[in-house]
């Protein structure tokens, strides 16, 4: 472990703020890019499920909303 204390790791003799901000933003974007498709997939699956349920109970016409 190069840094002897957590405090040193945070400050990184002056450059700490830039490094950590960069890593934080990257973490933000990467997690967004990883999570979004999963959420979208679940939402689509739910959509199909509700549409199916509605069709079975015969409310919507054969077309049904897209």
């Amino acid at each position, binding site marked *: 472990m190069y*840094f002897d204390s957590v405090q040193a790791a945070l400050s990184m003799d002056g450059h700490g703020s830039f490094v950590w901000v960069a890593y934080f933003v*990257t973490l933000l974007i990467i997690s*967004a890019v990883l999570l979004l*498709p999963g959420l979208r997939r679940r939402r689509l699956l739910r959509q199909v499920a509700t549409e199916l349920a509605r069709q079975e109970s015969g409310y919507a016409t054969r077309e049904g909303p897209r």
Partner: protein
Amino acid sequence: MSSRIGAAQKGLYNLTVMWTFFHKLGSPPWLYGIAGAIVRWLLPLTILALLVGAAWGLLFTSPDFRQGNSYRIIYIHVPSAVVALAGYYVMAIAGAVSLIWRMKMADVAMKAAAPVGAALTFIALFTGALWGKPTWGTWWEWDARITSMLILLFLYLGVVALYEAFDNKEAAGRACAILSLVGMVNIPIIYKSVDWWYSLHQPASIKFSGESAIDSSMLYPLLLMIGAFYALFTCCLLMNMRAELLQRESRTAWVRRLVKPDGPR
């Protein structure tokens, strides 16, 4: 450490082998299933690789003698730049395949690759700017590589904007395929002309540590991060494709069966 890079690279390698082998079958349900299987083991691997690489690069390596600790941003700047460029080529090739062989799956892959590539390019730009501040004192430095990254971002945004502009989605896919192919032809030209332009105006500027120049203790985390970013790109691509498949095939029987196993035939 290097075994994990090997794993990610191997994963990518046998993915491409499988892809070309199965591309005749290209049927949505099969693709949906195989993509799910790959993501299930690739996703944890990617997250693990990212964490280990970041921790290693951030905390364990010694600072660069000239730039101090700010060089640690290299561990996200360079990999995201490399994969963003590779991502554009993946998108262009997928576009070409969908145009030439009329394969819907390639069209789905292209549509899925665009946003991921744009996000990675943005990361590269953002970290490049942040890195520029301590080393050169300015937020935005018209350095050749960063300018080329900016142009790459515009190319990505162009493709995404063109896709949204079309009402008929199939025509949109083909138009984007053509645009990404034209872009692919132009990328080397743009990179060379920007490099040349940059050397014309500031020949003497310091060039911060290129990949090869840094010594081995810093090199390993970098290679790991590049492999991790490749795996990240593959993961996002596959997940986006799964979502895209659901969107396009929402009315088909296999999606219905997926939702309700005993759904109507």
